[in-house]
C-alpha cells in the first residue's frame, strides 16, 4: 500500500508532471516529451500514479490549468491512472483519445521536433493495446484494441507520409503496423503501407534510420517467405542480417529463423555451429538430411517440429526440400557405384534407388521412383534421362547433379 499522501502533495506532483509536459511542448523538447508519454512501461505504483489515486479530480485540474491542451492532458492522466490500477482496457481507451489529441497537435507543428514523442506514442499505443486485448480475452470479451491501434497508426502514417522532414519518421510507424498485423494475422493489410513506402515519391528508402530499415526488411522479407519468393526474401533478410546491430542477438536469431529455410531453398547450407550459436537447432536435422540425402531424417525432422514450422510459416518451404534430398541420395549412389565399377557408374538401376529408400525405411515402388526421377530431370536437379523399359537412370557424363547456385528449384 502506498503511504498516506496528503492532498497538497498529490496536487503538487500532478501539477509538476503537467507543467513538465507543457514546458516540453512550448520549448520543443522532443526527448523530454517522449519520456513523459511512456505510459505502459511504468510500474503499478509511481509517485505520479499514487498522486492520481489520491486526487480524483485530476482531469479538472489538468483542463483548468492548461485549457489549450484540454484534449490531451486529462485523458493522458486517465490513461496513467487506469494503467496503475491494472485496468488495461480503460487505459487503452483513454490513451487512444490522448493520442488522437496529440496527433492533432503534431500535425500543426511545422517542424519534426516532436518525432521522438510521436514514435513513443506509436509504440505505447501498441503495447497498451496488447495488454488490453489480453485482459479482454481472459475475461471472455472480444479483444479488439490491437485492431483499433492499427487504425490509429494508419492515421499517424498518413500524417507522416508527406513532403518535408516529417517523412523520415514514417518507417518506424510502418514497422509498428507490421508488428500489429503480424500479431493479428491480418498480414494482407501490410500491402498498402508497403506500397506507399516503396513507390511513393516522398520517400527515399536510404534516408531512413538504419534500425527502422532493418525491421522493415525483416518483416517484408518474412512476407516474401510466405509467398515463396525466395530470391527476394534472401535479399531482404540478408540486408536485415547485415545491418542489424550485432549486439541484439535476439533479433539476429529472429532473422536467421527465416533466412535459414530460404538459404536452404536456394542450395546454401549453414554450418551446424551457426545453428548452435543462435539456438536454431530445429533446422539441424534438415541440414543434415540435405548433406546426406537422408529422406527419412528430413521427414522425421518435419514431423517432430511440425507445429512450430507451421506456425512460423516455413513448413511448406522445408517440405519442398525433399527434391534436393532425392538429388543428394542419387548422387551418393552414383559415387558408390563410381568406386565399385567406374565404367558403368553413370547408369543407375531404378531398383537400386528403391533398395536405398527401403534401407531408409521408405516404401516406394519402381514406378514412383521413375516419376520422381522424371521430375528431378525436368527441374534440372539431375542431368540425364531415364529409360522406361530397362528401368535405368542414365546420367550425363558431365556435371550430372547441377548445383542450385543460388536459384530456387
Amino acid at each position: 500500500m502506498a503511504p498516506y499522501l496528503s492532498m497538497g502533495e498529490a496536487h503538487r506532483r500532478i501539477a509538476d508532471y503537467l507543467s513538465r509536459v507543457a514546458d516540453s511542448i512550448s520549448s520543443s523538447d522532443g526527448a523530454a516529451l517522449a519520456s513523459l508519454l511512456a505510459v505502459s512501461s511504468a510500474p503499478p505504483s509511481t509517485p505520479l500514479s499514487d498522486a492520481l489515486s489520491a486526487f480524483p479530480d485530476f482531469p479538472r485540474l489538468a483542463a483548468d490549468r492548461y485549457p489549450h491542451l484540454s484534449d490531451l492532458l486529462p485523458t493522458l492522466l486517465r490513461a496513467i491512472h487506469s494503467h496503475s490500477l491494472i485496468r488495461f482496457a480503460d487505459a487503452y481507451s483513454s490513451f487512444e483519445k490522448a493520442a488522437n489529441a496529440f496527433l492533432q497537435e503534431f500535425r500543426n507543428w511545422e517542424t519534426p521536433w516532436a518525432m521522438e514523442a510521436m514514435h513513443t506514442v506509436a509504440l505505447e499505443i501498441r503495447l497498451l493495446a496488447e495488454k488490453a486485448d489480453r485482459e479482454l480475452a481472459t475475461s471472455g470479451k472480444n479483444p479488439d484494441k490491437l485492431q483499433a491501434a492499427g487504425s490509429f497508426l494508419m492515421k499517424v502514417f498518413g500524417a507522416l507520409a508527406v513532403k518535408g522532414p516529417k517523412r523520415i519518421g514514417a518507417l518506424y510507424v510502418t514497422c509498428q503496423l507490421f508488428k500489429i498485423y503480424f500479431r493479428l494475422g491480418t498480414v494482407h493489410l501490410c500491402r498498402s503501407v508497403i506500397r506507399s513506402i516503396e513507390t511513393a515519391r516522398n520517400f527515399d528508402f536510404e534516408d531512413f534510420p538504419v534500425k527502422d530499415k532493418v525491421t522493415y526488411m525483416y518483416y517484408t522479407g518474412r512476407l516474401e517467405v510466405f509467398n515463396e519468393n525466395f530470391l527476394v526474401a534472401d535479399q531482404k533478410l540478408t540486408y536485415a542480417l547485415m545491418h542489424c546491430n550485432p549486439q541484439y542477438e535476439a533479433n539476429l536469431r529472429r532473422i536467421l529463423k527465416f533466412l535459414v529455410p530460404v538459404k536452404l531453398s536456394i542450395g546454401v547450407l549453414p554450418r551446424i555451429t551457426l545453428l548452435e550459436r543462435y539456438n536454431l537447432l530445429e533446422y539441424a536435422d534438415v541440414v543434415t538430411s540435405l548433406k546426406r540425402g537422408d529422406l527419412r531424417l528430413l521427414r522425421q525432422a518435419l514431423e517432430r517440429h511440425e507445429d512450430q514450422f507451421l506456425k512460423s510459416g516455413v513448413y511448406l518451404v522445408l517440405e519442398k526440400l525433399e527434391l534436393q534430398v532425392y538429388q543428394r541420395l542419387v548422387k551418393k549412389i552414383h559415387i558408390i557405384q563410381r568406386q565399385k565399377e567406374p565404367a558403368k557408374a553413370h547408369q543407375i538401376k531404378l531398383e537400386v534407388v528403391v533398395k536405398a529408400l527401403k534401407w531408409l525405411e521408405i516404401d516406394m515402388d519402381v514406378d514412383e521412383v521413375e516419376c520422381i526421377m522424371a521430375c528431378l530431370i525436368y527441374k534440372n536437379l539431375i542431368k540425364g534421362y531415364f529409360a522406361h523399359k530397362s528401368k535405368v537412370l542414365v546420367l550425363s557424363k558431365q556435371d550430372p547433379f547441377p548445383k542450385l547456385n543460388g536459384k530456387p528449384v
Partner: protein
Amino acid sequence: MDRRDMASHRGRSSARGHGRSRGWRGRGEGRGRGAGPSPPPPSSSTSSFSAAGATAADRGGDAPPIVGTCPDMCPAREREQRERLRDLAVFERVGSDPVRTSPSLAVKKFCRTISSTSVQASDIRPPPVLRETMDYILHLLDSSGHKFEIIHDFIFDRTRSVRQDLSIQNIVNDQAIQIYEDVIKFHILSHQRLARSCQDSDASSLCYLNMEQLTKCLLSLFDMYDMIHKNNSRSSKETEYYSFYVLLHLGFKIPKMVDSLSLWYSNLSASIIQSKEMIFARTILRFYHLGNFKRFFCTIAAEATDLQLCLLEPFLNEARVRALMYFNHSGYKLQLHPLRYLSEILMVEELELETLCRLCGLEISKNEDIKAFAPKQASFCLPASIPQSNGIYISRENQR
C-alpha cells in the same frame, strides 16, 4: 453471368483493407459492389469496425441488426414488381406464363446495391425461411428439363441472395453455417458438372466465376467457424471444408488467393491441421509438387471424400498433362512409354489418355497393338485448354 463480378473482385483488395474487422471480411454478400455504404458486419463481436474504414452507416453497428420477417422465399413486393417487369426466371413461372409467379415458385434475387438504411424487415427472410428456401433451390439441381448452365445460374444467384439475407441480419450460428456448407457443396458439384458439360469459352468463364464464388464463400465460412469456436462449438464437417481450401491450390486457373497457403496454415489450429481430411489434402499437394504422380492418383482414389473428388476432378487432366510433360522431357527416346502403363499410373482410360497425348502434340505410335509414345518429342506443348476428365479410372485388372 454478370461480368462485373470479376472486375470488382480484383479491385476490392487493399483499398478498403485497413480498419476492417478481422472476423468478417464481407465478401460481397450484403455488400453493394462499391455502391453505397456497407451494412454492419454480421457479428456483434466484430463491432469495432474502426474509424479509418467505416462510414456513417457502418457506425450503425451499435444499432441492433435487422430481424427479417418475410414469410416467403421471395418478398411479396419483389414478386409483384418482377411480374410487372417480366423479370421471372424460367423456374419461377406458373405454367410457362412469363408474367405470373407464386409464393411457392418465386425466390428472392440477389441485389447488388443494398444499403442497410433503406432495407425493410419485410424484405428479409428469417433463418427458418432461408432454410426452406435453400432446400427448395437445391432440389432443382436434380431437375432434368433444362440445360445445366441455366439451373446453375439460377441456383448461383438465389443462393447468393440467401447469403446476403444472412449477412444483413448478422446471423452467425449453426444454421447459418449449415446453409453456407450447402452453398459450397452446390458450387463444388457445379464445378464438376460445368467442367464436364462444356468446352467452350463462355462456359469456362462460368467455371471461373463459380470458382471465385466458391472461394469467397469458403473464406466467409472459415470466418464463421472462427466465431463459433469462441463458443466452443464446431461443425461436424469443418475439417473437410478446410481441406477444400488446400485442394484449391492445385489448380492453375483458380482465382488468386488472398493469402498464401503458408500464412493460412500459420493461423490454423493444430487439431484442424492434423485432421484426416487436411492431411489428405496436404499429402496430395506434396506428391504433386514432388512429381510422384503414381501416389498422387492412388491416394486420391483411395482416400478422397466424394466432395473432395468432385473438387479435384476438373484438375486431374492438368496433372496428367504435367506427367506427360515430365516423361516426354526426361525419357529415353528409344524406349517408348506404353499408354497402357501410363493409363494405370495416371488412372485414366487409355482412350482418354490418347486424346490428351494428341492434344499435347505427342505422336502415338502403334506396334503390335501396343500404343505408346516416344519421349523427347519437340512437338510437345501444353495445350491452351485441357478437357475435363471423367475422374479416376481404375482398370478392371487393378480393381480388387
